[in-house]
């Protein structure tokens, strides 16, 4: 049993302490006092110089939120959150807002450099073969800099911070905000609606194929700070955009709340590809600290033949509660969800998707790969429903779970609902362990237990990795190796 036992031991001694992104940047920041009340919301709104309608929208959400309870149905456990013990706003002190990268606090740029983010345009341009990526970086609550803005503007693509969009494109924001995830949607989404600080906004005009990948990096830096970003992406008729999102946070002893909302709108014949590599701090080996990632992500395939594709690689967070979903409203619209969720240590993941088929001949595809190691719990929860008018709806779901060691758990909770007889819904699920035979075969060829596990896991998630944009796939592969490092040494 030597080799496998060793693997198991290493899983036990999981080294989440080795979290590579766990540094704190010494940046002066401008923080709102702890606690949540209407004054705080007014403070946030005033700081962002928001119009009256948005403040009213926030306050409505807040009043609604007061009447709501946190959801209890997910397979995750955590002590009650004291919402009065959180800072709802923290901005790096570099007011007024940076005009260009030159105005950004150099310490902040160094932080991003440490994160390996290609924030500085010159760096990106210097890389000969590197595909160009426009980046919006969100540091705690404020969007710091958006690269490549001018070039995007040439083709009419708007890519800016949410606050900027509120100032410069209020009509667009007002037309789409809250139309996919209503302010009343659920406890955390409603909280976000009340206190959201910043995030990214994208609008791709009709017929435009966005000339580069758009990317946002989120980082929580300030202690006791909740991060409530709000992202809104609108792809107008016949347009295409691919959007990447990356997340990190420093190591903290206490848990930090991250409750984001992402809304996607795809009009007729438009396509949105949304990819996430989530690597929030997962907490230490005993489950202290780490990010609570309670996120509502939803896309609305509003127009006929539109398509929304979610791809996610989830390796971080103490608790993940996240179900990127598609509302397939437009006729013959398509939704896709590709997910890799890796949990280790004492991480808890309850994640999946919803495919709501409303329109005729709508199609959806779900490929989910869950990998549980250490003492983690990894749940796939997915809903597929075909409504009365969604004739010819078609879904294929495949969720596979892989267990490493024997103290972790993998669970699959599908909800399937068909209200018309022509819908075809397929669900496949498997659970397997990294087999001793596979490990031994690799070891016999000279691979270490760690290399062998990473190789087998990479094989397991290959279908999904292939869905990621090239640049992210490489990053994701590294991330998978890093997050399993603890599990096998």
């Amino acid at each position, binding site marked *: 049993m030597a080799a496998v036992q060793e693997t198991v031991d290493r899983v036990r001694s999981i080294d989440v302490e080795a979290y590579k992104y766990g540094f704190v940047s010494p940046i002066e920041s401008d923080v709102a006092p702890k606690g949540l009340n209407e004054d705080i919301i007014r403070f946030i709104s005033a700081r962002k110089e928001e119009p009256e309608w948005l403040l009213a929208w926030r306050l409505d959400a807040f009043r609604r939120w007061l009447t709501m309870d946190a959801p209890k149905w997910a397979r995750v456990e955590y002590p009650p959150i004291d919402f009065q013990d959180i800072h709802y706003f923290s901005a790096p002190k570099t007011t007024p807002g940076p005009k260009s990268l030159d105005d950004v606090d150099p310490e902040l740029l160094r932080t991003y450099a440490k994160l390996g983010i290609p924030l500085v345009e010159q760096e990106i341009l210097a890389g000969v073969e590197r595909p160009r990526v426009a980046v919006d970086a969100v540091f705690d609550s404020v969007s710091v800099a958006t690269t490549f803005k001018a070039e995007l503007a040439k083709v009419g693509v708007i890519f800016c911070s949410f606050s900027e969009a509120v100032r410069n494109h209020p009509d667009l924001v007002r037309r789409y905000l809250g139309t996919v995830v209503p302010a009343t949607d659920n406890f955390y989404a409603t909280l976000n609606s009340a206190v959201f600080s910043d995030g990214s906004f994208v609008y791709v005009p009709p017929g435009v194929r966005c000339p580069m990948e758009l990317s946002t990096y989120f980082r929580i830096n300030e202690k006791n700070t909740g991060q409530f970003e709000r992202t809104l992406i609108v792809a107008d008729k016949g347009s295409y955009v691919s959007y990447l999102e990356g997340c990190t946070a420093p190591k903290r002893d206490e848990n930090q709340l991250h409750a984001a909302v992402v809304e996607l709108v795809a009009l007729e014949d438009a396509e949105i590809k949304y990819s996430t590599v989530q690597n929030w701090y997962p907490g230490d080996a005993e489950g202290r600290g780490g990010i609570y990632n309670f996120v509502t992500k939803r896309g609305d395939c509003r127009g006929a033949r539109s398509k929304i594709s979610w791809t996610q690689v989830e390796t971080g967070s103490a608790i993940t509660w996240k179900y990127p979903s598609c509302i397939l409203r437009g006729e013959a619209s398509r939704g896709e969800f590709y997910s890799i969720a890796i949990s280790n240590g004492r991480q808890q993941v309850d994640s999946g998707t919803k495919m709501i088929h409303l329109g005729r001949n709508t199609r959806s595809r779900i490929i989910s790969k869950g990998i549980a190691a250490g003492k983690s719990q990894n749940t796939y929860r997915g809903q597929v429903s075909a409504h009365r008018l969604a004739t010819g709806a078609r879904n294929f779901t495949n969720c596979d779970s892989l267990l490493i060691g024997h103290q972790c758990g993998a669970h699959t909770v599908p909800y399937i609902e068909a209200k018309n007889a022509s819908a075809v819904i397929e669900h496949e699920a498997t659970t397997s362990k990294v087999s001793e035979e596979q490990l031994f075969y690799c070891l*016999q*060829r000279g691979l270490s*237990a760690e290399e062998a596990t990473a190789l087998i896991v990479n094989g397991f998630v290959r279908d999904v990795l292939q869905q990621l944009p090239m640049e992210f796939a490489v990053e994701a592969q590294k991330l998978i190796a890093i997050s399993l490092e603890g599990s096998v040494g």
Partner: protein
Amino acid sequence: MMKTAGPMLEIKKLNVSIHGAPILEELNLTVRAGEVAAIMGPNGSGKSTLAYVIAGKPDYDIVSGEIRFDGENLLELEPSERAQMGAFLAFQYPVEIPGVATMTFLKAALNAQRRSRGEADLTTPDFMRRVREASQTLKIDQEMLRRPLNVGFSGGEKKRLEILQMELLRPRLCVLDETDSGLDIDALKVVSDGVNALRDPDRAFLVITHYQRLLEHIRPDVVHVMAKGRIVASGGPELALELERNGYRHYAEAAA
């Protein structure tokens, strides 16, 4: 015999059991560099266990005894360390790894072994050239190497891939566990040619088989007969022919 140096592999008084049941009992075996040693014996005589124990498969209890490879006590080494030292096992049942392209696996294995020797990783063109050369002799289609490791491979493809790995990794001690099983006569010829091409004064082979058939293609220097977990007779190639005529019964009874 090619070289008169000390034995490459030396097994002394090896006792191995699984779940308390003895499989190998007081087994002694010596294999010299340059030698091709065949191990023949009936089902259940412990041949495959011997192969696995040399490679370090974790399911067995080593009760007592020793296995030395170039004088080093193999039993103290991890399976990957044994492999890095140059001990190779061609599996009777090669394992499938879904999603991992065969080429990716070959490269990972080769580079892991190179790194253990302090050598740099092979560049992709160098690696590709080596694979192409080796796969030509073994009549392996490049398309097969793009498929996931052993997934959906025929018996013959799996066995040829084992020999391809042997060719690429160039181990010093090659243990072939029933490499002939599941092979038709043409595939047997290809595999045997591959093995023969690797015969070298610095390399030893331990060829485990039921049948004389394989030994017509891979001519052994020594034949050991195994029964009830120990070596009960040793001799030249003629011993294999005798077994073919008279079967194992006589030896099985002698060991009882």
